[in-house]
Each structure stands twice: as structure tokens, then as C-alpha cells.
């Protein structure tokens, strides 16, 4: 099996789906001839032709609106939003239309579209190339929100998302496009090829939405994470030398509540990690769910390790990024209790 980085894995997922299903097409800003600023659609226009993979006007609202129209016709469009920070002009079409089409028409019309977009920090992108807006989608009934953390999952989940009959927000942790990142920015960059999850089958395989993955088994504390933070959490668990169980949620809505409850009931402790700003972040929902389902098992307060409640400041990339040190502190705090 070839070793792929996350970009190649995502490209392979699109390649497979364009090859299998004539109703799949993809478009976005610079996504056609050039293949996308992150190269995820590289080569697809050449291989499948102008109308299967093309450039779009700089109009996130227009892209998502036309994709909804295409989906209502019967296609399965995949829209690339160049950075998650730029998805807001399309927010009305996502929230008021894509998310509600099936419900308001009692299933008469549906919107099986996938919106792919790179998110997250760690790349010195400043406040408009580093955002983590997942909670703005998890609050919206009718949407599914997916975030992969490895090349293998990226391909399987993207295929799962495209084949899903509901609208999916597919957030790609751009910091780990080219290699896993545990938050130690001062250490040499690792390529994916050294990581087992870079072994990606060429053909079709789908990872069902709604299923989490236990990345590290442990008995003392449960760490809930997704995207880049999965790797940070794993590093922190090692460094803290705490028997932590690290769960990669993979799908935020619908979330894999069984996996979460099973783990927290076992460990009695929980740390939630995300890059997004803290207040009303998805960590709040996870914290509420855990205490609702596992209250009598909790031996310490649930901790949230998150981005600060500020925009992402260019000069303070690593002071803002919730790195392993902060996760280690949180793990120690919950264990002390």
C-alpha cells in the first residue's frame, strides 16, 4: 500500500469518487486547473475534464448555493472553501438551506453535498488563516461535521461524507496535511511516511460517519480530541507518563457517545482538547455530555484545553496554540484530584 500524506489521501478520495460516480463533481477557488492552493484537487481536472473539477468565482455564498441547487438536482457536489476562515459568506446557505432542505420539505428535496475546508493553526497564518469554526456547525441541526486526523481516515471519511445523503462539513486540519504534528514546533518536522496511518489503499473504502477511534488505550483519564489535537494529546499522554486513553472523535455530529461514555465510565476523568476559542466551543458540548452521562463516575472536574478567547495572533503562534505542555498540565491537574 502506498504511503500518502493527507493531501494525497484526500486527492485519492476525490479521484476514486469522480471515477465511480458521474454525479460527483468538485469546484472551488483555484481548485480547477491549478489543483487548489493546498493541491488537494491536483490533476483531477486534467483526468476528468473541465466540468468535473473547475475553478469558481470568489464567492463562498455562490459556491454553496449553486452546490445546493446541484444537489437538489441529484448530483453530489464537493465544494472546496479555500480556508475555513472564509466560509462565513456561505454561512446563510449552509444554515438556512443545506441544513434544512430535507426537514422543511419532508424529504422531498435533499442536499447531499460535502463542503471541504482546511482549518486550524500552527502555520503562522494569522487570524484569517488559522480559525477552527467547528462549533458554528455542530450547533446547526441537519449538518454533520467531520474532522480527520490521519491520511487513512481522511480518505475514508471523505468518501463516507460524499456518499452520505446529508450535508457534511468536512474540516481538514491543514497543519497535519504534510505530516503529523504533536505541537513541538521546535523539533524537526515529521513526514507522514513514517506514520502507520499513512498506508492508504488506492481503491474505494469508506469510514462510516459517527464512529470515534481509540488512539491510545488507558485507564486513568479520557482525552477527547480531534484533528491536529489528537497528535498533541498523544504526545502529552506520553510526556506526562499518565495512563491516558485518547479518543479521536473523527465525527463531531453525530458524536460517538457510546465510545465517550464507555471510556469515561472506565477512567472517571476527562480532558477535552481543541484549538478553537474556548467559550461556546465544541468542548463545551462535550463537557456537558460527559457530565450528563457520567456524572456519578467523575472523580475530578472535566478540563478543557482550548485556544484562548481571542483571534489567532500572528506573533504568538505558539503561545496561542494549545500545545502538549498545556495538555500535560491539565492531565496532571485532573489526576491530582
Amino acid at each position: 500500500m502506498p504511503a500518502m500524506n493527507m493531501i494525497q489521501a484526500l486527492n485519492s478520495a476525490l479521484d476514486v469518487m469522480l471515477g465511480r460516480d458521474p454525479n460527483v463533481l468538485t469546484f472551488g477557488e483555484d481548485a480547477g486547473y491549478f489543483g487548489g492552493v493546498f493541491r488537494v484537487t491536483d490533476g483531477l481536472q486534467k483526468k476528468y475534464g473541465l466540468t468535473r473539477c473547475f475553478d469558481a468565482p470568489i464567492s463562498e455564498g455562490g459556491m454553496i448555493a449553486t452546490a445546493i441547487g446541484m444537489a437538489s438536482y441529484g448530483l453530489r457536489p464537493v465544494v472546496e472553501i479555500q480556508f475555513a476562515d472564509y466560509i462565513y459568506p456561505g454561512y446563510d446557505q449552509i444554515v438556512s438551506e443545506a441544513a434544512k432542505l430535507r426537514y422543511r420539505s419532508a424529504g422531498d428535496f435533499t442536499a447531499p453535498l460535502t463542503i471541504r475546508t482546511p482549518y486550524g493553526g500552527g502555520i503562522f497564518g494569522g487570524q484569517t488563516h488559522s480559525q477552527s469554526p467547528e462549533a458554528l456547525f455542530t450547533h446547526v441541526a441537519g449538518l454533520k461535521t467531520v474532522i480527520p486526523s490521519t491520511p487513512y481516515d481522511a480518505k475514508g471519511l471523505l468518501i463516507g461524507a460524499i456518499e452520505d445523503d446529508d450535508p457534511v462539513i468536512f474540516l481538514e486540519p491543514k497543519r497535519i496535511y504534510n505530516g503529523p504534528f504533536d505541537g513541538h514546533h521546535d523539533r524537526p518536522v515529521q513526514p507522514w511516511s513514517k506514520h502507520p496511518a499513512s498506508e492508504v489503499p488506492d481503491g474505494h473504502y469508506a469510514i462510516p460517519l459517527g464512529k470515534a477511534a481509540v488512539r491510545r488505550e488507558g485507564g486513568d483519564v479520557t482525552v477527547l480530541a480531534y484533528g491536529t489535537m489528537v497528535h498533541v494529546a498523544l504526545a502529552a499522554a506520553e510526556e506526562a507518563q499518565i495512563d491516558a486513553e485518547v479518543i479521536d472523535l473523527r465525527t463531531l455530529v453525530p458524536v460517538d457517545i457510546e465510545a465517550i461514555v464507555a471510556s469515561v465510565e472506565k477512567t472517571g476523568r476527562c480532558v477535552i482538547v481543541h484549538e478553537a476559542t474556548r467559550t461556546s466551543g465544541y468542548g463545551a458540548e462535550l463537557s456537558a455530555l460527559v457530565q450528563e452521562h457520567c456524572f456519578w463516575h467523575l472523580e475530578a472536574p472535566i478540563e478543557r484545553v482550548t485556544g484562548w478567547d481571542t483571534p489567532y495572533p500572528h506573533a504568538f503562534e505558539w503561545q496561542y496554540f494549545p500545545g502538549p505542555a498545556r495538555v500535560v498540565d491539565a492531565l496532571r491537574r485532573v489526576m491530582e484530584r
Partner: protein
Amino acid sequence: MKNRAPLSLHIPVPEHRPGDAPDFSDLKLPEAGAVACPKIDAKPRQMSDLAFSLIRVLDGEGRAVGEWNPKLDAETLRRGLKHMLLVRVFDDRMYRAQRQGKTSFYMKCTGEEAIAIAQAAALEPTDMCFPSYRQQGLLIARGYPLVAMMCQIYSNAQDPIKGRQLPIMYSSREYGFFTISGNLGTQLPQAVGWAMASAYKGDDRIAAGWIGEGTTAEGDFHYACTFASVYRAPVILNVVNNQWAISTFQGIAGGEQATFAARGIGYGLPALRVDGNDFLAVYAATRWAAERARANLGATLIEHYTYRAEGHSTSDDPGRYRPQDEAKAWPLGDPIARLKQHLILLGEWSDEQHETALKEAQEQVRTANKEAEASGVLGSGSIPSVKTMFEDVYKEMPWHLRRQRQQMGV
């Protein structure tokens, strides 16, 4: 610069307000038949004058004149007239139903019936419509059951969309009628996307979308025009300029400085401005745009110039912001009266026939309403099963919705 008058902020205001006598005397309208009809493959720039003029076919006497005359057979005209009558009767009945407390809300399209009815006639039944809430005529012209419309309005157990939406937010894939959104304008770029998909698949169906003149200020209008122009989508973009957006006159949407049709010019789209109360003119313009779209020549923007004869909705009282009876003073008249006059002039219709047709329409609506009310009206009688409240959020119900349904005890 200092010795120049200071800057001042301009706020557009309509010429007449409550208390004033309605007066359209300084409205300049070209004669019926005055506007030339270009070939469907003409270059948009060569026809940009059409955006500032007005396509009219029916003249004051009810004659059909000029290059835009679609020369329709009497049968088609009679069908159109009957459909317009049916829409008006339906609106009156449902308006009363709301006043009687049988539902929460209703919206009429009085005075604008020609637009949806003539366009439904000019389009193929398989063409896809992305309407606003004022194109109920499309469903009626396509033969959608009145009972189904009424059950939606009453949110009763027979409501095809299970009581999920506000009255008049119909949906019917089968009849090529896209689920109406309460959010203005969103459907227009969706219509463009549907049309792009049709072109992508080598289909022959085109799409049409409708918004009001007030809604042109939303980004969605701009998205629709941009994508339709760039990808030459086979779509008709209709702006129904009934001159009012609730209490707000068209000047606040930009109507003081240019026509709404003129917006098309900047995108290189053919832009037609049509007398929206003239069944023949609306039919002809729509037919022209449809042929152009089917010939892979792309999208057309049509402004339908009309007047909202009644309140915005059952929640609105136009007497608070515009002169009483302004509707009666509207120089382009009533679409039903004008088509009736034309048919009579042709010797294809009579007052007696009109009376009969009206009675038939009333009877049809009465019967349908009896049946609909039998299934319940809002707040009394049957309602959709509460269980269904949790369905259709997703294709399969996820755990958290199953759990919430249990908490609800259903």
C-alpha cells in the same frame, strides 16, 4: 473644497404617502408594441436598451401588437385566464381562512397573477421552478391539487410537508416546484446551480427562479447573476418588481437610480423589462429566454414590472405607508381584466363565459377547502403525528434525536 456645500445624506422617499392622492402621472411608459424583439442569439450589449424600456403586447383596447406578440391560440389564452381567476379566488378564500383563525398566516399575489401563470404556460412542465412565496400560480397552472396546498396552509395531518413550515411554503418535486424558503433570495443561486447540473448532465430541462425587487439587495441575487453569467447556466432569473417590499418602496432597493433589469447588463446577461400585468408580454419574454437557454446561449434576467395590489401578507396593512387605492390607480391595470378584454375582442370570450368561469373557480375552491378543513385546521382537528417532528433532520435519525424523541414521550 472649503467653500463648497457640506456633504449630506440622501434617503430615498416615495412620492406619495397615506393621505396623498395616488398619482402615477409622471410615469413614462412606452406604447404597447414599441419595443423590438431581438433574435435569441443576439449579443446582450446589442439589446441593453430593453433593460430601460418596457415590453408590452396588449394595448389599451386589448389588441395584441408588435414584434413580441406571441400569437397564442385562443385555447391557451382561455386556460391562462381561468388559471388567473383560480389563483385569485384561492387567495381570497385562504385570506379569509386566516382571518377566521384557521391558520397563522397567508400571502396573496393579487395583481401579479399573470406572471406565474403566463410563465408556467411558457415553460415546459418538466422545467424546474425556484419560486418565492408569491408564485403560487405556478403550482395552480401545473395542476397541483388545491387540497394539498390548503392542507399545507392548515398544517393538518394531510400536509405534504408534515406541518414543518409556515403556511404557503409549499414544496413539490413532482411538480417541479422547489421547497420555498422563508429566507429571501436563497433560491435564486440555487436555481442557477440546478441549471448548471442540468447542463452538466446534458439534460434538456432548464430552471427558473423568482425574487422580488426588494430581495435584489441580498448577496444571493449577485451570486445568481455571477454564476449564471460565468457558466452560461440555462436559467431564467425573474425579478418581480411589484414596487413594494412590505412597507418599503422600490427606491430603497435601488429603483430610483436604474431599473432592476439593468442589473443584468453588468454581467453580460440579456435583460428584459416586461409589463408584468400583460399576460402576452410575460409569456413572450419567458418563451424568448427559455429558447435562448435551451440553445445553450445561457441565462436571461427578466424584470416584471407590476404593482402589489394588496397587503404584503395577512400581517400587513398597506394603508399605513402608501395611499389608499393606489392599486386602482396603477396605469397597467389588472392582468385578469386585460386578458379578458383581449379574448372578448378576439371574439373568443364573453362576460357570460367569464361569470361561469368565475363560478367554476369558486366552486372548485369551495370543494377543495371543505375537503382540506375536514382534515383539520391549525389548532383543531388532525395534526401530523408528533413523532414526525424528529424525522427528516437527517436521513437516518441519530442517537441524540432518538433520545430527544423518547424524552418527548412519543
